[in-house]
Each structure stands twice: as structure tokens, then as C-alpha cells.
């Protein structure tokens, strides 16, 4: 079933959480709502679930207006950030809850409840923990119980609010891959909220990036990476270096850097900023080439397969550069040494720098 929100606005007091947001999630799609805290992503999810009422705008399920429908009638599966398991009920009873509270006419018989719950607990690989209380489980196990509970009522859509937010890094990675596989199996229309770009890009078919109550970009992970719509998107999706300067006559002069910029052929100059991702920069010993610029190595931090360096150009702010370990070993740079820095890709945005 598809989800569609049209022109949703919502404020809390004087804080505008969502500002005329429209979004469509197609049947069977897996979409991530990504954004920094306070961007309105959780509010949007809660409005879709019916836990919050929008000030303006409508929510449609499968083309039908559901804005006036109460949360209990929307048939959405909701997974809460802090699990929200019923603390006085066993794992089994938690999962069974949605079946047990159905009206007498719809309620399945006890044997059916038992079969369904056991099946779901098997699906989340916790069938051996049915008698435990939520407090006796680990974070990752609780989150899987919460997921099984949400799936028990056979929801038409699945909404997940920072589902892995309170788990440690290893469990988080394992669980999100597992969630992706689960989605590939059951094809349930899913929308999940996260502030972790890595998580969004790894798991989702499509990523919707929110900032201050507005959608700033909506696309596949590749699109977000290759064609970021704004400096904010670029900055949010990973470590970038910013070079401030001006563009004029088809060329951008950005501090130590100078690149072609045919989009601005006018002679009249305009302020602009260039962005280079820290892993899209080459380092080399200075051999008198003309490309790039010279900078002094300040810091080297070796962590796993990637080596992070901090360099200061002769004029300008410090740079962050990531190179592979092999490249690092071949180059062998030491702090204090001067290296030639050549960004492989510089994205130029014309205009006063926004939020940096």
C-alpha cells in the first residue's frame, strides 16, 4: 500500500516542525527519512501514523484520505525509538497484544494467536525467548520484539522511528542488514527515520533528506551522492572541505583552488563556495605540477583501512583528507611535510555560503 502526504505543516508553539511537506512512498518501497535532529522527520512519521495531527495537509493511504482516521484504525506498524514494549507483559504477550485487542468478531482463536506469535518470533529469531520480560532482553532483542509486535497485526505499512538509534554500533549494523533482508522477503511499504546518513544510504531504496521542516532532496542514495542539491546535502552526507571564493568569466577562484565553472560565463563576479569530499582528494609529493595547491601535514590518524590527515594550505582553513591505507604507505607522509593537494572533484555552488 502506498503512503502519500500532501502539503503537511505542523508547528509546536512557535517552532515550525514541518513546512508544507509533500512525499510519496510507493507500494513496497523502502524509504529513509534522513535529517539532523529538529528537522521534523519524527513529526512527519508520527503524523503518518496518526499519533500527531497536522495543522494543515492530508495523509493518504493507497490513495484514500486517512487524515481524520484515528491511529487505531490506520493499520500501520510502528516501531518506536525506545521500543515501547509493554513492560509488564512477556515477549509472547507483547507480540500477541495486537491480536488480543481486536474486536470479538475479528479476534482470532487462541490457537491461531499462538501460531501467529510463534511464527513471528521465529521470523525475528527470538522464539526461544517468549516467556521473558522485556527488561530481561538486550537492546537488539527488544527492538526485534518491537518489530514482531508491529508485524503481528499485518499492517499495510511499516513506520520505524530511529529503529537502531539506541543500539551499539555492531548490533546496529547487523540489525539494519537483517531489516533490509526482511524487507526484501515481505515487501512491506516501509518508511524509517534516521539521523545517520550511513544507515539511510545502506538500507533504503530512496532517501528523503529533511532540513528545518522542509524536504531538501529526495532521491536514490547514488543521486544524493552524485548530484547533491545543495551544500547542506553535501555536508550532511559526509565529511567535506569548503573553499570560499568568487566565480567570474567561467572560472571559480576559491582560495588556493581554481576550477572551471562554465555555468557562470558572465564577467561580473559572484560569491561562491566549492566543496570537496575528504575522500575525493589526491595527495602527492610536490613535483612542480600546476594542478592543486601545497599544504602542510598537521595530523595523521590511522584507523583501519582509511587514513585521515589534516593539512593546512598556505592560505585558508585546515583540510580533512582521507586516503587508503595502501596510498598512505606508498606516500609515507610525516607531520610537517608539504604535499600537493589535488581535489578530484569540486562542486561549486554560487551564492553566499549558507549555514557553515
Amino acid at each position: 500500500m502506498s503512503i502519500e502526504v500532501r502539503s503537511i505543516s505542523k508547528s509546536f508553539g512557535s517552532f515550525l516542525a514541518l513546512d508544507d511537506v509533500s512525499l510519496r512512498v510507493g507500494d513496497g518501497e523502502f524509504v529513509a527519512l534522513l535529517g539532523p535532529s529538529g528537522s521534523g522527520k519524527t513529526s512527519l512519521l508520527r503524523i503518518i501514523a496518526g499519533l500527531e495531527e497536522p495543522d494543515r495537509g492530508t495523509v493518504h493511504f493507497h490513495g484514500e484520505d486517512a487524515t481524520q482516521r484515528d491511529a487505531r484504525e490506520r493499520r500501520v506498524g510502528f516501531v518506536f525509538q525506545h521500543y515501547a514494549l509493554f513492560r509488564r507483559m512477556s515477549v509472547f504477550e507483547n507480540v500477541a497484544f495486537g491480536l488480543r485487542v481486536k474486536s470479538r468478531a475479528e479476534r482470532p482463536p487462541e490457537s491461531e494467536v499462538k501460531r501467529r506469535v510463534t511464527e513471528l518470533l521465529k521470523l525475528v529469531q527470538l522464539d526461544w525467548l517468549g516467556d521473558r520480560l522485556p527488561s530481561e532482553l538486550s537492546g537488539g532483542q527488544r527492538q526485534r520484539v518491537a518489530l514482531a509486535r508491529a508485524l503481528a497485526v499485518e499492517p499495510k505499512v511499516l513506520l520505524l522511528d530511529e529503529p537502531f538509534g539506541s543500539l551499539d554500533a555492531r548490533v546496529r549494523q547487523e540489525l539494519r542488514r537483517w531489516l533490509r533482508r526482511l524487507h526484501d522477503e515481505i515487501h512491506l511499504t516501509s518508511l524509517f527515520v534516521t539521523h545517520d546518513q550511513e544507515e539511510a544510504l545502506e538500507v533504503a531504496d530512496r532517501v528523503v533528506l529533511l532540513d528545518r521542516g522542509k524536504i531538501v532532496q529526495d532521491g536514490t542514495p547514488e543521486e544524493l551522492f552524485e548530484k547533491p542539491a545543495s551544500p547542506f546535502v553535501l555536508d550532511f552526507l559526509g565529511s567535506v572541505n569548503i573553499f570560499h571564493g568568487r566565480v567570474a568569466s567561467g572560472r571559480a577562484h576559491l582560495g588556493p583552488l581554481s576550477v572551471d565553472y562554465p555555468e557562470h560565463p558572465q564577467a561580473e563576479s559572484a560569491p561562491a563556495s566549492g566543496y570537496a569530499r575528504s575522500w575525493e582528494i589526491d595527495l602527492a609529493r610536490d613535483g612542480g605540477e600546476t594542478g592543486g595547491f601545497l599544504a602542510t601535514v598537521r595530523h595523521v590518524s590511522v584507523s583501519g583501512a582509511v587514513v585521515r590527515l589534516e593539512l593546512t594550505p598556505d592560505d585558508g582553513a585546515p583540510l580533512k583528507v582521507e586516503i587508503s591505507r595502501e596510498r598512505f604507505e606508498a606516500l609515507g607522509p610525516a607531520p610537517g611535510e608539504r604535499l600537493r593537494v589535488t581535489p578530484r572533484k569540486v562542486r561549486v555552488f554560487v551564492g553566499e555560503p549558507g549555514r557553515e
Partner: protein
Amino acid sequence: MKAPRSREPRAVRLLLIGLAFATIALFLLVPLAAVFVEAFRNGAGAWLSAVSDPDARHAVKLTLLVAAIAVPVNAVFGLAAGWALGKFRFPGRSLVLTLIDLPFAVSPIVAGLVFVLAFGRSSPLGGWLTRHGIEVVFAVPGIVLATVFVTFPFVARELVPLMQSQGTDEEEAARVLGAGFFTTFFRVTLPNVKWALLYGIVLCTARAVGEFGAVSVVSGHVRGVTNTLPLHVEALYNEYAFQGAFAAASLLTLVAFAAMLAKAFLSRHAGEEAP
């Protein structure tokens, strides 16, 4: 958690521990013992006849009746207050929170007087009620009202902070799973606070049974009609019927013991409910 071993010299430790025990003995154990010594001074037979005296029996019955009305009223009110104040933010919330504590701040005598003024024959409300054959002041309804007033905060004060700290996550989860208001309340909200609720009820009961000041003002002290157990104790005491007074007092003390045991048991469970 294990308490760290004290580094104080042995003598200091013994002195401090001894002082603590001496204080408890002086202020709690000696008076408590005195109650039972006086109650049984003339033997168990005299105690039995004192507590089975018709006035004493009526006082016990009245006290139980008042508690049987006041405690459920406050349990229901406390739950409603805990739910509304703990789970929601609304204008006037802090005012209601302050008002709930009012009975703690007001002297019970004043609380009693307020009811006399509001429901006495000279007030418009009291006059109207009297014309319709309902006596509130110097009658059982007044005693119930005064007791409800005095015990008002006990349940609510236990539940408001607990329900606030538990948040509304589980209720929201129940709602998206299709549960209606009552289902959610009885299957999720109530089980989550049941021990704290019982704890509040025990405190409320102990106070309702033992309340003297407010009840004393509204009761009118008609023996065998509007005397509760604490008032009965006072009446006997003022007549120098010490043995009877202490016999009745021993009943109240037993209620207090029972409440303390229940409290100790419940507070252990109530601690588990904190998230």
C-alpha cells in the same frame, strides 16, 4: 550495593549507633509499648469488654465505613489525576498539581471548619440541604467529606511522578496496535502502576482510619452516632477512662502496624515500576 566500611573509631561508631537506637526507643518504642501495657493493664478480659462496648463497636464500624468510602473515592481520583497530570501537558496543570497538595498544607482543623462553614445550617448550601432532609455537618456525610479532603493527596502524589516518568510510549504503542481507550488503560496503564497505586491506597487508608482533627470539627462528638475510633479514644480519655481509651487506641495502633507491613512489602515492588 554494599555500604563502605566506616573508618571511624569503634567507640564513635558504637556511640552513634547507640544514640540512634536510644532515640527510636524513646520516641517510638516506649510510647508504643505504653499503649499496649495500658490497654492490657486489667487483663485481656477488660480489654475485650472495652473494645466490645457498644459505643466502641459503633466507633469501629463508623471508622471502617468512612474509610470504605473515602479510600475508593481517592483511589479513583488519584488514578484520574495521575493519568491526566502525568501523561499530558495542559494549561493550568501546575495549578492542579499545587491544589492537590493543599490538604497537606492546611491544618486539619481548618479543613474541618471549612466544611462546617460551607455545609452548616447557616450557609445557603447547608440550609438548602437541611430543607431537603440531608444533614451534612455533625453527621456521617460531613465526616466522610472531611476524611476525603484530608486524604486527598495520598494516591495522586504516588502516581503523578511515576506516570510522568513512564511517559506515553506504551499507550501510543497500544493505540497503533488497535487498542481502544479502556483496553489500553486496563491492560497497559494500570498494570504499570499497580504497586504504586496499592502503596498509595495503604497510606490513604492509614490516614483515613486515624484522622482526628478535621473529623473532630465536623462530627459533633455524638457518642454512638458520629464518633469515629480516634474521637472515641479522646472522649474516653477526657473522662479518665484510661483503660478503655488505651484499648481503643491499641486497635488504631494495630491498624498502623498492618499499614507499615503492607507499606514495606509494597514499596519494594513499587520500586520496580520506575523506568
